[in-house]
């Protein structure tokens, strides 16, 4: 490591002394500069931060006291010595007052000079160290202030509401989100708020405040702040301890869980709907069996066979419904592994029509089809797309009239592969059309009475189409027929 050499400037008009002192100090490992008059000395001491300065009191241009003043002004930490042959008590006092470390009478012995300079240098090191400490402390204070304001900014930016009450129930901190949630716009710090908070929230806070032997336990509750799931928050209250472990207050965090609650509600609605849809066919089967088994009713073997057949159909429908529900649930949970392949929609539609040939024959339905040549590919899961068209074309058969027709057309329009499937079936009333894609909805009228179905087919179709950013449109005229148009975006 390189040795640190004290930097010294000698300001003296007397050349012999300047050079002699420089040599002496250099041999003692000082780094020495010299100036032959006051003004040069001042300039040099301003330019370089010298550790030490030896200033001759009497110089021809300006006097040493002025030089001292100027150097101290620019470099207050440079340790200065006044050297003079005209020593007087008064000048010594004045020089020291002006910031000189000490006063060296001329002529001086090398020992005298070195003793003084060494003491001065020690002083210089002390000054620098205390300066450094002071600077560090100031920096840390600044950091602390910055940290506090940053913390405030963060707390104020939180989407969750946060507020803190002390153990007297006075508000000591809050952020804007908290005020928004509990709608207390006029609240101020220091206010007692337990009485004005929603009762459920106050209760939680009081529970913690009222237990002096509090454990580090968080209490939480769900609070409906606006009725009918308008605003539901989850509140979590935790004790805030003093450094000694005693209770200082309570911090409360409010999170908006309205959306989750809404989803939960829709889900529970769906579950109760599913339960009903499953229950009805079971009740029908059970009812038939009760009738067959009831000796008082004296059913004929023919009646019994009819009831058993109808029971079988209901159970078959139940199995289909469970399968559809499982499909929907897989789609919802996205657990179904999709195998994305480049598909030709025209071929899939054609294949579906072929697959349903038997059903078509049973009702004597004719299919006319028109497929655009060189259709672009659609990247999707083959099973899902086949399911989509099986449901749509299956419906076009099921709800068609005997000897009716189905027109199939596949073509491109803008960014979509469009499949249009038009039937000459029973059609729909506008009010039924509106509910067509809802789960379990089935049109009920004299025509549909004998047609079985789960009420889930079109809901599945819609889910599949939308999961590929596609859509489905329906036109229909009651007793005349319906047209389903499916738009699927093609892969460019």
């Amino acid at each position, binding site marked *: 490591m390189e040795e640190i050499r004290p930097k010294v400037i000698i300001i003296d008009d007397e050349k012999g002394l300047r050079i002699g002192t420089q040599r002496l100090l250099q041999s003692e490992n000082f780094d020495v500069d010299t100036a032959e008059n006051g003004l040069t000395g001042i300039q040099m001491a301003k330019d370089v931060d010298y550790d030490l300065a030896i200033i001759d009191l009497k110089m021809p241009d300006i006097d040493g006291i002025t030089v001292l003043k100027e150097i101290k002004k620019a470099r207050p930490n440079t340790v200065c010595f006044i050297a003079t042959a005209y020593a007087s008590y008064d000048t010594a006092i004045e020089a020291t007052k002006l910031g000189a470390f000490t006063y060296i009478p001329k002529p001086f012995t090398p020992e005298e000079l070195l003793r003084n300079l060494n003491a001065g240098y020690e002083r210089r090191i002390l000054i620098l160290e205390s300066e450094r400490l002071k600077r560090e402390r100031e920096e840390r204070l600044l950091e602390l202030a910055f940290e506090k304001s940053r913390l405030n900014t963060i707390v104020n930016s939180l989407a969750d509401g946060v507020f803190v009450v002390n153990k007297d129930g006075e508000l000591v901190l809050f952020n804007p989100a908290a005020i928004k949630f509990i709608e207390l716009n006029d609240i101020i710090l220091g206010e007692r708020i337990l009485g004005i908070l929603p009762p459920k929230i106050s209760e939680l806070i009081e529970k913690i405040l009222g237990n002096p032997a509090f454990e580090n336990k968080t209490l939480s509750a769900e609070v409906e702040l606006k009725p009918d799931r308008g605003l539901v928050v989850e509140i979590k209250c935790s004790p805030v301890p003093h450094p000694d472990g005693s209770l200082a207050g309570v911090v409360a965090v409010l999170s908006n869980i309205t959306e989750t609650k809404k989803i939960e509600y829709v889900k529970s609605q769906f579950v109760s709907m599913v339960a009903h849809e499953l*229950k*009805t066919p079971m*009740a*029908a089967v059970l*009812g*038939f069996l009760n*009738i067959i088994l009831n000796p008082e*009713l004296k059913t004929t073997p023919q009646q019994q066979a009819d009831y058993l057949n109808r029971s079988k159909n*209901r159970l078959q429908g139940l199995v289909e419904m469970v399968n559809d529900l499982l499909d929907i649930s897989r789609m919802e949970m996205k657990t179904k592994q999709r195998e994305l392949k480049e598909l030709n929609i025209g071929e899939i539609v054609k294949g579906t029509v072929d697959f349903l040939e038997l059903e078509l024959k049973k009702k004597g339905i004719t299919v006319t089809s028109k497929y655009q040549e060189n259709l672009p590919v659609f990247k999707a899961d083959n099973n899902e797309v086949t399911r989509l068209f099986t449901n749509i074309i299956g419906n076009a058969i099921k709800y068609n009239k005997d000897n009716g027709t189905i027109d199939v057309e596949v073509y491109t329009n803008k960014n979509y592969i469009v499949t249009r499937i038009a039937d000459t079936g029973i059609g729909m009333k506008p009010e039924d059309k509106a509910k067509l894609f809802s789960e379990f909805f089935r049109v*009920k009228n004299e025509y549909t009475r004998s047609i079985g179905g789960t009420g889930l087919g079109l809901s599945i179709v819609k889910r599949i189409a939308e999961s590929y950013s596609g859509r489905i449109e329906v036109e229909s005229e009651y007793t005349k027929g319906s047209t389903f148009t499916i738009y699927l975006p093609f892969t460019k």
Partner: protein
Amino acid sequence: MSDKTKTPKKILLVDDDYDLLEQNRMLLESKGYTVVTADSVESAWKTFKDEKPDAAVLDLIMEEHDSGFILAHKIKRDAYGKTIPVFLLTSATMVTGMKFGVTTGEEKEWINCDAWFNKPINIDELSTKLEECFETRSM
């Protein structure tokens, strides 16, 4: 049980499930009642007005989830309808284990019916309750 010497009581039976409608018609007829049926709220109201039944047995959940309630209210608000017993059929009990009952005055006001029955119905319980209601009303 209806007395064979009197004219059989006429029951309006409403359900949108054709199997259940047929089963319940058969069961009611086996107890000696005359049964008129309807499969929607609309046709039920028309049949009610035309036939003036002695009692109504309604499925709770028809096309909309509260159709049975609405129909029950409508019948109970009718000048003739308020004089006859109205029963509601539900499938909720079997699935949820929930037991419906019309006990408090408040419930009676809200659920405008005289009794609840679970599906499939126990015809003995239902006809006993019907007879009870007829008896109370004739007093």
